[in-house]
C-alpha cells in the first residue's frame, strides 16, 4: 500500500536524510521524499499498520532533522 504525506522541512539535504530514515523504519518497504513538492510517499510492507508505522517514521525523521514535520 502506498500513501503520501505532506511534510515540512527547510533544507534539501535534510529531506534526503528524512528519506533515508524513513526507508530504514520497520514496516516501510520504500519511501521517497520530494523536497520540491514537500511530499513523502511511503510504501508500506504488507500487513503493516500505516498509522503506527508513520509514528515511528516521524520519530526517526525528528532524529535526523529536529525541525521537520509530517502531516498525517
Amino acid at each position, binding site marked *: 500500500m502506498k500513501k*503520501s504525506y505532506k511534510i515540512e522541512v527547510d*533544507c*534539501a*539535504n535534510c529531506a534526503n536524510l528524512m528519506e533515508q530514515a524513513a526507508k530504514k523504519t520497520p514496516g516501510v518497504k520504500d519511501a*521517497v521524499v*520530494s523536497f*520540491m*513538492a514537500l511530499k513523502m510517499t511511503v510504501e508500506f510492507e504488507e500487513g503493516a499498520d500505516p498509522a503506527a508505522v508513520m509514528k515511528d517514521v516521524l520519530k526517526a525523521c525528528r532524529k*535526523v532533522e529536529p525541525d521537520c514535520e509530517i502531516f498525517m
Partner: protein
Amino acid sequence: MNKKQKNALYRILISAALLILANVLPLPYWMKCAVYAAAYLTVGWDILRKAALGIKNKQVFDENFLMAVATIGAIVLAVVDGSGDFNEAVAVMLFYQIGELFQSIAVGKSRKSIAALMDIRPDYANIEVDGQLEQVDPDEVAVGSVIVVQPGERIPIDGTVIEGSSSVNTAALTGESAPRDVNVGDEVISGCINLSGVLRVKTTKEFGESTVSKILELVENSSSNKSRSENFISKFARVYTPVVCFSALALALLPPLVRTVMGLPADFGSWAYRALTFLVISCPCALVISIPLSFFAGIGGASREGILIKGSNYLETMSQVKTVVFDKTGTITKGVFEVVGIHHNKEEAARIIEYAAHAECASSHPISQSIRRHYGQEPDRNRVQNIEEISGQGVTATVDGVSVAAGNDKLMRKLGVEFIPCRSAGTIIHVALDGEYAGHILISDLEKEDIREALDALRSVGVTKLVMLTGDAESAAKQVAEHVGIDEYHSELLPGDKVEKVEALLRELGGGKGKLAFVGDGINDAPVLSRADIGIAMGALGSDAAIEAADVVLMDDDPMKISRAIKISRKCLKIVYENIVFALAVKLICLILGALGLAGMWAAIFADVGVMVLAVLNAMRALKTK
C-alpha cells in the same frame, strides 16, 4: 516572505548591526567580546542547537555541526592567539544564514510559480437546486448530474454539453491558446475555462476520475520518480561531508606532527585554521538544492506547454533520445479517415457516393462514417432495405430498389463482380449496383499538415532515426513513409508485432547512451508504450488509458511537441550538469587553496554561498522553456 523567513532576516540584520558596532565603537576588550558574542548568538543559536541535537541523536555529520565546529574553532583560535578578532566567526555564521535565507526564498518562489502553472483545480461546481445555482464541492457531484458552467468559470468535471454553446480555453491543459468551440452534444473536459456562453453539462465522470484530477495526480506524483542525477547527488552528499570532515581533521593534525618530527615549529594554530576553512567548504548545499530544483522547474515549464512528464527520470531519458518510433495512426496521420477520391466507371461520382452512403447508413465503422461525411447529408433510412453487414468485407443493401454492394475486393469476388483494382494507396471501397461494377471510393487517413516540419525539427535536435510502424497495407505505408520522410517503416503489423519491432530496435541501440522513444495515440498501444525506453502518448486529452500508460503525455496531437519535449529536457539536463560541474569545481579549488593556506574562511564562505546562489539562479532558468 513567510514568518520564518522574516524572522531569519531580522536576526541577520540585528547581528550585522552588532558586528559593525563591535568594530566601530572604541569599547574595552571585555565589552567588545560581549557585543561579538551577542552578534554570534543572535544569528547562530539555532545552528548550535541543531548541532547539539545532532550529536545527541548520533547524527553528527550535518551542515549544522560543520558550521558550529568551524565558527567555535575560529573563536577559540582568536582567544588563544590573543588577537580578539572574532569578526571571522561571526561573519561566517552570518553569511551562512544569508545563504540559507536566499535559498529558502528562491525555493519558495519556484514552488509557488510552478504551483501557479498547475493551478487548474476547480474549487466548486454549480448545480441547480429549485432554479437557484448552488456551489458545491466537485467531489460531491454524482455521475449524470447536470452542472452549470458560467462564462469565466473553469469546467470542474468531464461531461457532455446538453444546453448552450460557447468557446472554451484549453490553454491550461494544452498550452494551445486558440479557443475551441463547443455546442450541444460535444464533450467538454474539466480544467478548461468557459469563455463566452453559459453551458449546462451532464457529467460523465466523477471528479476523481475527471481529466483535471488525473493530470494533477500525475504532476504531483512526478516528483517521486527521481532521476539518476538526483540519486547520485544524494549519495554523493552522504559521502562528501564525512570525507571532508576527516580530511579537515587530518589537515589539523598531520602537518604539525610531520613538522615536529622534522624539527620545525609545529605551528598548530595556522593548520587548525586551514582545517576549519575546510569545514566551511564541506557543506553540499549548492548541489543538493539545485539539482532537484532544476528538474522541478523543467517539469513545470514543460507542463505549461501541454507536455506532462511523469518524473525527472523520464526527463533525463528524454534528453538522450536518438530513435523515435511512431505508431502511424494518430501521430503521423490524423487518425481520421476521409474520402480522397471517387474513381467511377459509368456512374457519376455523386451517385456512387449517395448509394454507398445509404448502404452504409447503419454502420458505425470509421470507413462508413467517412463516406457519410463526404456525402454531406443525413442518409434517408426509409430508402434503404435489407441491410446486411458482412464483417471484414463490406455491406449489401437495397437502396431505392437498386441492390447496392459496397466493400473490398473480397466482397466483389464473393458476389462475382469484376472490379478494377486501384493504384492509389489507401482503403478501397468498391461499389456495385445491381451486380454491375460502378467504381470505387478511395479513403485514406490524412497526414498531419505539420508532420514534415515536426520530423525535421526532431532531426535538428539530434534524433538520428525515425521509424514508422503501422497495421496498414504495404502500399499505403510506403506512400506515407516516403512522403513525410521516414527512415524506416514496417507495415501490416498486428499489435503484438509492434512490441517485437520495438524490441528489435532496442537491441540495435544496444542499451547504450541513445534511447528509444515510442510515440502513439494512446489507444491499444499500452504494451509498446511501456516497452520503449520512453513512451509518449499524444492527443491524450480526455483519454485516461493514454495518461496511465505513457511516461510523457502530450495533451494535444501537435507533432511539434515531441521535439519541444526533447529540447526542454536537453536544456534542463544541461543546467543540471552545469550546476554539478560548477559547484564541484569551485569547492575543489577552495579546498586546495584552503589547504595551502591561500584562502581563508572569508573566501570559503563567499564561495559556498555564492555557488549556491548562482546554482539556484541557474536552476530557475529551466522554468523558462522558450
